[in-house]
């Protein structure tokens, strides 16, 4: 009986805990330490923050295959990686969509997309959605710039890539590039959070 009560209590705790996560989805705020992850990339390798070589940080982008906003930004994501990886800030694209709800976002489809677009950055699969829940990502694309301070990766920017998904040449605010410039010059990031319309994350349905 004691065991049963404990089990029930445990279930209630787990259930209420997960619903809190799903409802407020607060995740990280500016200045929080990002927890490390270990996720498999499309080339079969495992990617984690602690294993990044010569990194001063990372540009973590919650992404996917199927969102038109992501598609509009793919070339700019490639440019960001090509420009900033050498300066210590590689792009890590993370797909967290449930592939049952969104078959176009399966790991195999990620491999195809990465090959078609010749992604120079890691494109990893967060199948359990634990990473995006920890970060508090809600949409794609959703950028988190991390800065390495000692052994910690500290969140310095959360938001959009820039202010015009339709036309890269019409952009007037390069949020991510401005934040990186501030970081690399040892300044406080002037615009540390922005918002954009994005595709909702295809959250795994809780088992009934």
């Amino acid at each position, binding site marked *: 009986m004691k065991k049963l009560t404990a089990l029930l209590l445990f279930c209630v705790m787990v259930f209420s805990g997960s619903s809190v996560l799903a409802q407020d*989805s607060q995740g990280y705020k500016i200045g929080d330490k990002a927890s490390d992850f270990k996720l498999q990339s499309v080339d079969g390798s495992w990617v984690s923050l602690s294993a990044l070589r010569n990194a001063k940080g990372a540009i973590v982008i919650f992404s996917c295959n199927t969102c*038109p906003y992501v598609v509009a930004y793919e070339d700019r994501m490639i440019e960001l990686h090509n420009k900033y990886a050498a300066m210590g800030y590689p792009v890590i694209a993370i797909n967290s969509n449930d592939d049952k709800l*969104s078959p176009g976002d399966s790991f195999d489809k990620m491999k195809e997309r990465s090959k078609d677009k010749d992604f120079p950055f890691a494109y990893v699969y967060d199948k359990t959605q634990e990473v995006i829940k920890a970060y508090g990502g*809600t*949409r794609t694309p959703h950028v988190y710039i991390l800065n390495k301070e000692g052994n910690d990766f500290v969140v310095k920017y959360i*938001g*959009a890539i820039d*202010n*015009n*998904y*339709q036309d890269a040449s019409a952009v*007037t*605010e390069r*949020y991510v590039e401005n934040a990186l410039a501030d970081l690399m010059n040892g300044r406080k990031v002037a615009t540390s959070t*922005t*918002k*954009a*319309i*994005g*595709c*909702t*994350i295809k959250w795994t349905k809780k088992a009934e």
Partner: protein
Amino acid sequence: MRSLILSILAFTLVWFKGDNHLYDEQEPVFAIIDFPEFERMADAKTGKIRVFNFWATWCAPCVKEMPYFQQVKAEDEDLELIFISMDDGRRPERVTDFMKRRNITSPVYLLNDVDYNQWIDKVDPEWSGAIPATLFVKPNGVRSFYEGEMTYEELKTMISQLKK
């Protein structure tokens, strides 16, 4: 300026279509708007609960919930339903084609302003920017906001709470 021309074009299209089918049912409203126009709509006093549903033709959960919104609106005279499209303003035909195909009878406005960070917080500070999302405005102007997909029952519950 471009959005103004597009709006006039879209309006003219709707106008002529309406003219040709005088005895048909009225064509649903479609127009391209900017954010100040949206704000005027959200602030207008009509004596009804106004439901602004943010969606896009390519957004699967949005498309799934639209019939529930239309159904709830059909069952309730105290409601006004306005669909706010986040589709590409350069391709309004994607929206108008969708409206015909899916039998969208409520007015649809394509909010053509991609400088999202300038206006998302003005709709509601709690909105992360993910769609679907819905803004409810009571007749007295009090706003409620819901981010995420809604079922028919959830929508019904929300409306009855707003009426209390």
